[in-house]
């Protein structure tokens, strides 16, 4: 589906990463302690460094930090934010929506709609699309878009297939009305028949974690350990899906906007891994100097936040007009945005200090008290 919106601007953005850095050179165990294997993986997939949440830290904590930085540094009046959207596939609870928890933590006014959007890799573009629609229609005056994921926790650390790909991140973006026409273009799509190509099976209501699952550990032919609540990613199928959909999506969005590759100052492509991004770049014919596959090597695959991580890392302190965001993945779902960021306050990447968060034991004890009515 295609849509365009006028009189909306993206006022500010910041991405927050946890400070806990993991370097692939320290993870040679993933490669049977074989330096040659590690070097091949670095060259082919682009493994480098990534930043992961510490124990007990979640997307909500990172998103709160990002929102607080953005509100403070843009000197926003909290009471003027009338919509809060959180895009994540890793909420704190099935209910209430984590956007409501964030609304409370941030101390926003009650004259404010808050809701979650449950998407991964394509999610940031969906959030941006919703925010544009709300502001352009007049339904909302100012949208705080929070987005993030903690995909490093979606498999166990010993799992060499999934775990080394992912880093964690969250962002805050402010979207509001402008008198300028400032047209934004979006082209989105879904292939629901491929829902099981990227899935974490025992994480919702269909297959709740009970005793028969909680201790279950599966070992595959390569010796990787899996649990039913881990993420399954069917690499070759997802690669083929991506190559079929992403370059085409980019082309369609260019056509729809009436713009050429020359009119776009930068292309932010979801950093699934370096190999995937490089293949998309080659197939779509965009110039290498206007895009990157290196952000994957710096921060890993940031899932929901990936395209925002690229914007914050590569475009801070640069003047850009129209840029393209191309995001694709779990769903299967994809989205493309062509937006003008000439008025964007790009606060870049910030690192978050570990907070004193309640431990697992504290939380369990606390909830027991609640159930007992104490």
């Amino acid at each position, binding site marked *: 589906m295609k849509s365009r919106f006028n009189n909306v601007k993206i006022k500010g953005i910041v991405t927050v990463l946890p400070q806990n850095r993991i370097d692939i050179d320290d993870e040679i165990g993933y490669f049977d302690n074989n330096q040659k294997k590690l070097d091949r993986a670095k060259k*082919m997939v682009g493994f480098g460094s990534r930043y992961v949440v510490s124990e007990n830290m979640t997307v909500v904590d990172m998103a709160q930090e990002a929102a607080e930085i953005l509100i403070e540094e843009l000197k926003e009046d909290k009471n003027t934010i009338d919509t809060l959207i959180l895009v994540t596939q890793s909420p704190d609870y099935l209910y209430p929506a984590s956007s409501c928890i964030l609304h409370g933590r941030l101390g926003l006014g009650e004259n404010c709609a808050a809701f979650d959007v449950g998407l991964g890799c394509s999610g940031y573009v969906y959030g941006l699309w919703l925010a544009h629609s709300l502001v352009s229609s007049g339904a909302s005056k100012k949208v705080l878009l929070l987005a993030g994921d903690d995909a490093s926790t979606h498999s166990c650390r010993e799992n060499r297939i999934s775990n080394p790909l992912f880093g964690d991140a969250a962002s805050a973006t402010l979207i509001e009305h402008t008198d300028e026409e400032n047209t934004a273009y979006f082209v989105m799509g879904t292939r629901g028949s491929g829902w099981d190509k990227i899935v974490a099976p025992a994480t919702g209501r269909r297959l709740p974690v009970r005793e028969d699952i909680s201790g279950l550990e599966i070992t595959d032919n390569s010796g990787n350990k899996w649990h039913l609540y881990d993420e399954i990613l069917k*690499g070759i199928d997802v*690669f*083929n899906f991506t190559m079929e959909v992403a370059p085409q999506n980019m082309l369609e969005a260019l056509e729809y906007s009436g713009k050429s590759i020359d009119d776009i100052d930068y292309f932010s492509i979801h950093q699934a891994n370096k190999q*995937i991004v490089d293949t998309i770049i*080659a*197939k779509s014919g965009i110039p290498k100097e206007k895009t990157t596959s290196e952000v994957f090597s710096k921060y890993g695959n940031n899932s929901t936040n990936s395209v925002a991580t690229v914007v914050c890392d590569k475009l801070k302190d640069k003047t850009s007009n129209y840029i393209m965001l191309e995001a694709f993945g779990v769903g299967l779902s994809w989205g493309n945005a062509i937006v003008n960021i000439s008025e964007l306050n790009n606060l870049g990447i910030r690192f978050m200090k570990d907070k004193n968060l309640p431990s697992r034991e504290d939380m369990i004890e606390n909830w027991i008290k609640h159930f007992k009515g104490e």
Partner: protein
Amino acid sequence: MDRNEFLTQMQDILQTDEELSFDMNLDDLEEWDSLSKMATVAFLDSNFGVKTTFSDFESIKTIEDIAKKAGI
């Protein structure tokens, strides 16, 4: 792409020091692992517009089999 160039590209994909030939058994190569299989999928897609599925690898035994998929 001619067959010589194809072999050079396979050398790069496998990143192996062994001298490659079209009829050698891929399973004898330590480097024929999930990394180089993904790189093969990407190589066939980018250069020949050919899609490879997971099950295709059951019947790919030699570099000749990969060349056949590429149509060269």
